[in-house]
């Protein structure tokens, strides 16, 4: 069961990778990278259960937080042109 799930995760990841390469706008790519992050979280958790080492769930939790913050950082860079640091905002 876990092997079926992790291979389906791999198939979905390849499909999202195709969208990342073909996406006409940058937002398609951000969206596809966000989906790839979610699929990798599930893959890490499933890999931990397959290898009988469920401690991998800690890494999945960390990666979930990083994925969320990374998406928001890229979106903020697109919408405002800076990441909100003092030097670039003073220049504006």
């Amino acid at each position: 069961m876990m092997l079926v799930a992790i291979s389906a995760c791999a198939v979905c990841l390849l499909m999202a990778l195709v969208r990342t390469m073909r996406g006409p706008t940058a937002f398609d790519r951000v969206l596809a990278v966000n989906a790839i992050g979610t699929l990798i979280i599930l893959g890490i958790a499933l890999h931990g259960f397959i290898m009988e080492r469920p401690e991998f769930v800690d890494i999945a939790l960390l990666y979930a937080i990083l994925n969320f913050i990374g998406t928001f950082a890229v979106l903020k860079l697109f919408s405002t042109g800076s990441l909100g640091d003092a030097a670039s905002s003073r220049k504006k």
Partner: protein
Amino acid sequence: MDAQLLISVLSGFFILLGVLALLIGALGLLRLPDVYCRIHAVGMIDTAGASFVILGLAIHEGISLVTVKLLFVGIFLFFTSPIATHAVAQVAHKSGVVPSGRNLAIAKTAKKPTGAEANPKQAAKIRSKVSRKSRGAS
């Protein structure tokens, strides 16, 4: 023995349901025509797929610390992924990505001058009708 069978059947059922949602969402991400449509598909991956797979893993594990961590991951994904997709939609709309398909606002602004050129009387009638309708709506 019986409880073991029930646990494995339940966890397998939930993992397969989640995998189905993941495959549908990835197919939608690949095939749908537009950023806004693809956001819909990614929302399916992030909420339905991830939640069901994590629920299946938690049932498989039983009651332990690992289950608590898995539920933390599931709750975090369940609450933050809609926020992320909503932010993608907002930034895409703000930076001028137009939805594909029949766009009503663009069609109205394109049709108005041609109608006035062809038949000014009828155009004026249409415009008064439109203004009346908008007054009624407001």
